[in-house]
Structure formats: C-alpha cells, structure tokens
C-alpha cells in the first residue's frame, strides 16, 4: 500500500515502530510515546496524517487509543510477540505499506530523534505538549481522544531558526485602521 493517498493502518505503524526500537527497550511505554511523537510530528511537518491510529490523553500522557486491544489482536494474529509479563513487544512480521522517500525520511528522523530520550524524558516531553495539555485541560480531565489537528500547535517540531525581533523592526499602528477580530 502506498502512503500517497491514504494513511497507514495503526497495526502497520506499530510494526514499523517496533522494527526501529532496540529489542531491549521495546516496551509498551516506549511504543506508545514514539507512536505519539511520530504521528504528531509527521502531521506537523507533512500536513497529513501518518496513520489511522487515534491517541488518548491519560495520566501517563498520550497513548495509542485502545492500544491493549490492538496489541492483543496483533498477538492473536501472530504479528507480534508479547513477553516478559506483557512488558516487551517484538514484531513477528513486517509492515505491508510503502512510504514515499520524503515521508520515510521525515518519519525515520522523528523516530531516531525521540528514540534518543529515555522513558522518563519521553513522559516529561509528552506531558508538556499542547495537544496533551489542551485535551486534559492542564491534566484535570483524563481519557479523552486527542484531536489530531492540535498537532499543528506543536511548534517544538519546527527546527528552523529562532531570531529575536528588535524594536526598530516592530510595526507602527494606525488606530483608525483597527478592526475587532472575529466580528
């Protein structure tokens, strides 16, 4: 399946991520965090969804919505192996989609970048995202699905330059030309 016209399945996303995660670090937590950063970073950079996975905001941060059910089905279908009392997951098959070279480069860069963080750092980062804070109303409401459009607010995915504006550069205002926003 090509990604040009449609997003990949959540199962393929999981299989692809598992193929990239080092076996000894292949935990439920890491899979969930990398999926969230890969999906939302991809949306931010490519302006399209990566997969049909939904993400929920819970106490532990963003997770793949219904991930236990999804993984149980994948295990039953012999696509993954879950061992060590359900803590480690390894892929048994390869995903069945084709990325465009540009999409693959973006996705692999995101996975590589966020794989460098340890689990606590990933938890901290995911809790500080606008998507999570807005969905949970600053950690007051848990369990809601995160609107994927919120990915566009995650400006930390942008790695372009960040210059200060000097006051000589600021625009002058002519009050006679002001109008109220949204009216």
């Amino acid at each position: 399946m090509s990604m040009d016209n449609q997003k990949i399945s959540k199962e393929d996303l999981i299989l692809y991520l598992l193929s990239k995660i080092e076996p000894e670090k292949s935990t439920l937590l890491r899979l969930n965090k990398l999926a969230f950063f890969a999906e939302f970073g991809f949306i931010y950079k490519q302006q399209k969804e990566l997969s049909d996975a939904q993400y929920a905001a819970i106490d532990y941060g963003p997770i793949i919505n219904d991930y236990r059910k999804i993984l149980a089905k994948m295990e039953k279908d012999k696509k993954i192996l879950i061992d060590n009392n359900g803590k480690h997951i390894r892929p048994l098959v390869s995903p069945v989609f084709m990325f465009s070279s540009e999409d693959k480069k973006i996705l692999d860069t995101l996975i590589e970048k966020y794989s460098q963080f340890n689990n606590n750092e990933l938890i901290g980062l995911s809790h500080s995202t606008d998507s999570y804070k807005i969905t949970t109303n600053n950690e007051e409401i848990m369990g809601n699905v995160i609107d994927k459009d919120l990915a566009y607010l995650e400006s930390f995915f942008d790695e372009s330059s960040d210059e200060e504006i000097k006051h000589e550069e600021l625009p002058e205002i002519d009050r006679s030309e002001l109008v109220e926003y949204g009216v």
Partner: protein
Amino acid sequence: MGFDDGPYRILVHKKFEKVVRKKLPSHLVNALHKKIEYLKSNPKHPSLNTKSLNVSNAWCRQRGIDDVFEFRITKSFRCIFYVQHEQREIVLVFVGNHEDVRNYTK
C-alpha cells in the same frame, strides 16, 4: 505589567488580515486562529508560550501601549501583539517570519 485574568478584546490591523492570508500556509492559518481564541480568553494560556519582547517603556508610551508580546505559530512564524492592560485590549500587529517583519516595516 502582567496580564489580568479574564478576556481581552482583540483588535487587528487591516494589514494583519492581509498578511495572514498571503504569508501563512493554510494549515498554519487554522493553528493561528485557534491560538488567537486562546489569547482572547486567556493571554497566559499554556499553549501560547507568550513571550515579552524587549522594548523600552519610552517606546511603548510613545505608542500608547503598555507591553509588546509575541506567541509562536511555529518556531519561524510568530504573531506580535501590543497590549493596553487598562482597556483590556490586545492589538495583533503582525504575523509572519522575521524576514516578513523587516519587509513590513520598510
């Protein structure tokens, strides 16, 4: 001076709307409008990461404003706004990247 609690009235310059349509990619226009709604209800909203710009009091007084702030749409695209706290008024004066600010003021 900090922001008061509660809503602020948002004013935009005619050129602001024009720049938004011209300069921002469509997906960022949606993000901008979401952020302006947050700004309106709570200028300290965490998703805005509002930052005060280093502008002198004299510069602000000459323009009848109290503070100059910006929030980011992306790292390179920013929205600059002037604040009058007593009138609870925010004037969005610019949206774009740094180079756009320079061009705008030429």
